[in-house]
């Protein structure tokens, strides 16, 4: 049990989250079907990836798992895996930026592409920056009192959850390049960053096993750490397979010049 703090979840948080999720479910197919008139048909599997991603993120934000996460660290960690690892991987394969580029008027699309090509995005989307943003954020969340404060303020709670989703998304994107990517880096650099990042996830999981955050009981903390470690392994495996497959495609015979 985590100490009592808010009582039941703040209804405004749940309502806002539910609305955002509903928008994501609604606007994506609208945009895809609308742009089908002018471009190639938007592939079915991308809808499926997007919907699965929204559901994964949604189940961490509203509903029974999100409620349980307020009193149980294991439930919190399950939600974290869904929100920070699985949902980003699924959403990315829905290629939302490609879809947005398809749907925007030319002038706005140009402006967006100029932004994507900017120096700022180059720095922020560098694999090292996204890894630090993602995993550094986790160390701050679990190894400082932020975890405790997060449960006392709805604003902080919302901010942390938005960060976990976005940082997870940008990190996965900066490693896999599934969606449009302006600044590309070598396979070698991304392998090194990926291995270091996954290692830091494992280190943090073991440190939580030994020393759970304030207010979490030993048994609950150990369970949560195991979920983080082995659940992380499962999603990591999918990321590594996608990554290796992109290498396999890029270095196909006849395409050597474009590989690595």
């Amino acid at each position, binding site marked *: 049990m985590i100490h009592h703090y808010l009582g039941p979840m703040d209804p405004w948080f749940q309502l806002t989250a539910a609305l955002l999720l509903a928008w994501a479910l609604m606007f994506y197919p609208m945009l895809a079907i609308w742009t089908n008139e002018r471009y190639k048909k938007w592939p079915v599997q991308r809808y499926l990836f997007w919907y699965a991603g929204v559901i994964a993120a949604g189940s961490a934000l509203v509903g029974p798992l999100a409620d349980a996460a307020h009193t149980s660290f294991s439930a919190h960690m399950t939600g974290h895996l869904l929100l920070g690892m699985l949902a980003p991987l699924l959403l990315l394969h829905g290629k939302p930026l490609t879809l947005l580029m398809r749907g925007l008027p030319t002038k706005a699309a140009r402006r967006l592409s100029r932004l994507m090509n900017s120096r700022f995005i180059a720095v922020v989307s560098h694999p090292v920056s996204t890894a630090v943003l993602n995993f550094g954020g986790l160390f701050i969340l679990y190894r400082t009192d932020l975890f405790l404060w997060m449960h006392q303020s709805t604003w902080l709670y919302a901010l942390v959850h938005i960060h976990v989703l976005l940082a997870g998304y940008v990190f996965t994107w900066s490693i896999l390049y599934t969606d449009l990517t302006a600044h590309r880096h070598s396979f070698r650099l991304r392998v090194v960053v990926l291995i270091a990042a996954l290692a830091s996830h494992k280190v943090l999981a073991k440190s939580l*096993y030994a020393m759970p955050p304030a207010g979490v009981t030993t048994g609950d903390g150990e369970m949560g750490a195991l979920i983080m470690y082995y659940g992380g392994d499962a999603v990591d495996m999918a990321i590594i397979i996608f990554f290796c497959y992109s*290498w396999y495609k890029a270095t196909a015979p006849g395409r050597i010049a474009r590989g690595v």
Partner: protein
Amino acid sequence: MEKAEQLNAEELNPKLKKRNFWSGLLFGIGLMAFIDEVIFHQLLQWHHFYDLATPQIGIFADGLLNSFAWFAAIGGLFMFADLRRWHAVRMRYWIASVLIGAGAFQLFDGIIDHKVLRTHQVRYGVELLPYDLSWNLFGAALLIAGLVLAKSSKEGRSA
């Protein structure tokens, strides 16, 4: 036909010959780490997830090693698929490399992880020496078998 293609591919890209070794080595490392996880952590539960006696450096090294091994298992197999696509697989040499990778990992785990960094022990509440000995001897045997097979696969080729 196969042979002609094989020679061609290797002339085209000399990296492919070496890739047999690296593919096998990486896969061997990943395979051994996976076997270790399944048998000793999950099935027998001799190893501890974390025994609270491990120094910080051990936790870091262990995380890095396992993260690398996870990548190696999958990356090694993709490299093997790549070799097949080029008709450049040297099966005996590849298997030898797998054994070398597996043996080296086992030895590294037994000596560096268990003894130097003390991430965890083979088993708890027992006399450790016979466990440590058989752990490392098994690793050494795999490594030597791999080296012998690698040598014989080279001789077989030049003859």
